[in-house]
């Protein structure tokens, strides 16, 4: 089955999931990543998604997806029932990102977490020079209707996992579809992808 190219952060995740792994994609959207993992890597790929139309689209792709909310419905999964739990571009939309991270690491042996970096220089500039909440390529929605209610930066995430004793196995930083270095990430990365474990 032919797939359209994955979003850059999803491509990073797909490239780093082991073949045949059991995967739960939380906030799986239209199922693009799940379908790629199933068809390309033979994964047992399942999803959770809040939007009914997206769930219907996933079922249409032959995927197993449950309509649910990352904030409240992750409790239904047994401990360590997946090799990987994935949360892409969703952390910043949850009510309690800290608790969602705990759930991910309870359900999955490891977790991929990707999020837009709010400390990217364009965002900083927008806020500094215009004094306005930034509307950028990656954050295209105005403050009053954005689903992103808990913005965070690469530095915030690093600090959070350090204080919670969560291990960073690997991290990828993206600017467009190019990667950028670890050191400059908090300034130059638009997207961050972390692979974490307990």
């Amino acid at each position, binding site marked *: 089955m032919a797939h359209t190219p994955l979003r850059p952060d999803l491509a990073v995740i797909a490239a780093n999931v082991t073949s045949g792994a059991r995967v739960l994609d939380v906030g799986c959207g239209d199922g693009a990543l799940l379908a790629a993992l199933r068809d390309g890597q033979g994964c*047992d790929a*399942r999803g959770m998604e809040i939007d*009914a*139309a997206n*769930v*219907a*689209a*996933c*079922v*249409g*792709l*032959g*995927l*197993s*997806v*449950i*309509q*649910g909310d990352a904030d409240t419905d992750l409790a*239904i*999964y*047994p401990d360590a*029932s997946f090799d990987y739990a994935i949360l892409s571009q969703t952390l910043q939309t949850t009510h309690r990102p800290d608790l969602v991270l705990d759930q991910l690491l309870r359900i999955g042996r490891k977790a991929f977490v990707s999020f837009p970096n709010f400390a990217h220089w364009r965002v900083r500039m927008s806020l500094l020079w215009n004094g306005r909440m930034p509307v950028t390529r990656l954050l295209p929605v105005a403050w009053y209707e954005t689903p992103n209610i808990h913005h965070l930066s690469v530095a915030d995430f690093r600090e959070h996992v350090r204080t919670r004793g969560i291990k960073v196995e690997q991290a990828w930083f993206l600017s467009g579809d190019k990667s950028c270095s670890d050191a400059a990430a908090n300034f130059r990365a638009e997207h961050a992808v972390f692979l974490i474990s307990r």
Partner: protein
Amino acid sequence: MTEPAPDFTSTLLELAEPLPLDCGKHLENARIAYETYGILSPDKDNAVLICHATTGDQHVASPHPITGKPGWWDRMVGPGKPIDTNRFYVICPNVLGSCMGTSGPASAAPDGAVYAMRFPVITIRDMVRAHVALLDALGVERLHCVIGGSMGGMQALSLAAHWPERTLRVMAIAATAAMPAQNIAFQEVGRQAIMADPNWQGGAYYGTGKAPDAGLAVARMAAHITYLSEETLGEKFGRRLQDREAKSFGFDADFQVESYLRYQGAAFTERFDANSYLYITRAMSYFDLAEDHGDAEHVGRLADALAPAKHVRFCLVSFDTDWLYPTIESRKIAHALNAAGAPVSFVELSAPFGHDSFLLDVPALDQVMTGFLQR
């Protein structure tokens, strides 16, 4: 309906072996009336079993022999439709206890007299046992999918739990794994209405020229309300009066909604047997998939009941305006299947028609159905 059901056009299977039942008895010479659509593939791998709801029948996509109305799921089943009969061999049996050709209280017992209340009390699993006997007779070892809404969904879940090797997929729409107390309560009202009708005669009304039509109509009226949403009733009827300018200050059907319910109740008695209504609703109130594994309130136990089906793909659908089998019931099943490790999809669709949404025009349901059956 006063007389035993006549022979309809449906194909009849007479079981050679007595059918064992959950109550411990056996049903001799059990007959199953069924319809099929499409062609069974040489590998016999394209069969889809559709299980009908409480007062449904085998005429899922063909006209009803009494009312002449199109099949009850005509919009879903047929060539090029979501359950595509160009591709699938669709089997739809009339359930055990019903009155459309399959053995029920209106059928003749082995002694030649009508069963009436001598018909054994049956369960949802007994209905499915009859379905499995039909699959055996048709040479279908494994279904592509078993599909059902409402009581049909209960049968689909029961088949998965008790005969998991017989299907690859389960689609349960607006269903439950255990009949909630509120639904047991509504059905008890219906049964009491029938049994309070003097024409019921302890169930032995066949051949007397009198049937408990009044009681059956009241049962249908009460049930019909539970199938609709408040929104539907409000939009369709509101407080509008029926064929009159002012209230009559009497007990005639002043309101349109009253007239509608009376019509629905009366029309129902033309096509359904009161004793069948007693037996089928009893089977539903007894339904609790997890009862052999502790109580259904405990998700772990329902997960145990569904564990044998962990290789089966499930799709559960609920509707946001369905207060009879609300979303929470489907969610409980989804949680249990998750715990059992079965591949499960679950979605709550938005539709205005209450429990009846599964029978009506909900394009999102068509999309989910098409996709789930596809691969």
